[in-house]
């Protein structure tokens, strides 16, 4: 079967709107498709309405200022976006293309216009616009969120800094601000906290007992944090108060106190060396008497070039047993001799994954500083501690006491 189509029917029911106007815009021909879009009858339109009457106010303005002049000058326009005004008051977005028909003498006689349904296109554009708005809103919200996060971050930083300040003040309160000047004695100390936000458990002090004697101690509380700091504080003040007694009694007092105080709940212990110094202004010698409560042995470095650990008759870790004996050890520092006290943060420091610094390494280094000022020895040890490949896991305290040469 051969299918044919009539030109007239194509014009009337084409999927696009068609109309023809005279040069002043009066509509002389319009197809059914366009009438359908407008909701108008042919009779109401032909000879009665002009093209501009079909447009919204904005469309009319655009028609007069752009479309009509271009058409007159160029004879054709294409793809102009306009809005038709429907009879029911609604709007109908369209794309308009027009051509001018001229007669034999070249005079314009008609304008033929094709109107395309632009609803889908408009919807698409609106969608794009909405999409852009959504993106913009999302961007603004993200900006806001980022801003808020920044404020929160700054607050957290400030809180952290404040906490660190508070902790370092507390930490400082657990250590002497500076070591006192002791006639006939040269001193140096070093303290390293493994963590800036955890209070360390190491402590030391040097102070006058009476006209002739000076007390000193250095210790290590098992554990870290506020609970350990509480024990540190207790240990410090107990030892200071007990300094008038002999070293063994002072440690026994601290031992009994810790044992009793922390009998219930989480037990707390510490190790400590406690002693007294009696410098002799005539000979330059310093008599030392000390006792140890489970603490690593002090290192005696003679100016003459020896270094040996001074093993005490071992007292136990303080706080474990209800009572304990801490027999004193006596020694005499000749001018230039140094007694080095340290916590296990030094001897248990990791050189690398598999190796610890250890007592032998400490002794070897100390030998090189035999006869050297106390400050040089402590400085060398602190440099060794910071040179390890593995960050120090434990706190470390050093106290060097040297008879002035």
């Amino acid at each position, binding site marked *: 079967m051969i299918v044919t189509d009539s030109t007239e029917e194509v014009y009337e029911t084409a999927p696009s709107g068609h109309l023809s106007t005279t040069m002043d815009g009066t509509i002389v021909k319009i197809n059914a498709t366009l009438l359908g879009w407008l909701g108008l009858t042919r009779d109401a339109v032909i000879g009665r309405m002009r093209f501009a009457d079909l447009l919204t106010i904005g469309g009319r303005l655009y028609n007069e200022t752009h479309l009509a002049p271009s058409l007159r000058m160029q004879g054709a326009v294409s793809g102009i976006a306009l809005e038709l005004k429907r009879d029911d008051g609604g709007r109908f977005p369209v794309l308009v293309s027009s051509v001018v028909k001229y007669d034999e003498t070249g005079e314009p006689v008609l304008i033929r216009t094709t109107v395309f349904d632009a609803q889908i296109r408009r919807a698409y554009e609106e969608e794009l616009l909405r999409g852009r708005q959504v993106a913009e809103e999302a961007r603004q919200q993200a900006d806001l969120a980022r801003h808020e996060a920044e404020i929160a971050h700054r607050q957290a930083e400030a809180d952290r800094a404040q906490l660190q300040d508070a902790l370092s003040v507390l930490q400082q309160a657990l250590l002497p601000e500076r070591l006192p000047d002791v006639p006939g004695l040269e001193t140096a100390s070093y303290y390293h906290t493994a963590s800036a936000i955890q209070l360390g*458990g190491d402590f030391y002090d040097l102070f006058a007992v009476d006209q002739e004697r000076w007390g000193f101690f250095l210790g*290590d*509380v*098992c*554990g*870290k944090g506020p609970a350990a700091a509480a024990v540190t504080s207790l240990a410090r003040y107990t030892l200071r108060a007990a300094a008038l007694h002999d070293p063994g009694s002072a440690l026994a007092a601290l031992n009994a106190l810790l044992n009793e105080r922390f009998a219930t709940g*989480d*037990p*707390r*212990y510490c*190790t400590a060396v406690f002693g007294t110094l009696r410098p002799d202004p005539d000979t330059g010698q310093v008599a030392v008497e000390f006792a140890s*409560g*489970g*603490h*690593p*042995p002090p290192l005696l470095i003679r100016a003459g070039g020896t270094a040996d650990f001074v093993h005490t008759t*071992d*007292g*136990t*870790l303080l706080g*474990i*047993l209800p009572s*304990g004996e801490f027999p004193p050890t006596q020694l005499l520092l000749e001018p230039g001799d140094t007694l080095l006290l340290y916590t*296990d943060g030094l001897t*248990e420091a990791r050189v690398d994954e598999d190796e*610890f610094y250890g007592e032998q390494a400490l002794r070897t280094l100390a030998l090189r500083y035999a006869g050297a000022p106390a400050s040089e020895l402590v400085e060398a040890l602190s440099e060794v501690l910071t040179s390890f490949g593995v960050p120090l*896991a*434990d706190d470390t305290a050093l106290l060097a006491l040297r008879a002035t040469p």
Partner: protein
Amino acid sequence: MDLSLTTRPEGGRTVVEVGGEIDVYTAPKLRETIVSLVDAGHYDLVVDLERVEFLDSTGLGVLVGGLKRVRTHDGSLSLVCTQERLLKIFRITGLTKVFEIHPDVASAI
């Protein structure tokens, strides 16, 4: 840099085998293990330290705390240790007077 813990009953006691490092970070795990054993009625403990690579003062505190805990139930906590490094720590801290230290699990039981 970690702590391993296994427990098993042996000869009427409970053996806690510890491996790795007992330091300020891992010691709480050991304490929890001992506390929960005691809470469950195991008062005679043998802590095997043969595979321990590191023990600091916090670790010592946990062991002593464990000892105190079992003693309140008339129990016992003995150690198995032959490593010179660790034995030295126990000697320095005077803990050789406090703990029974055995060369192997069999003699601890």
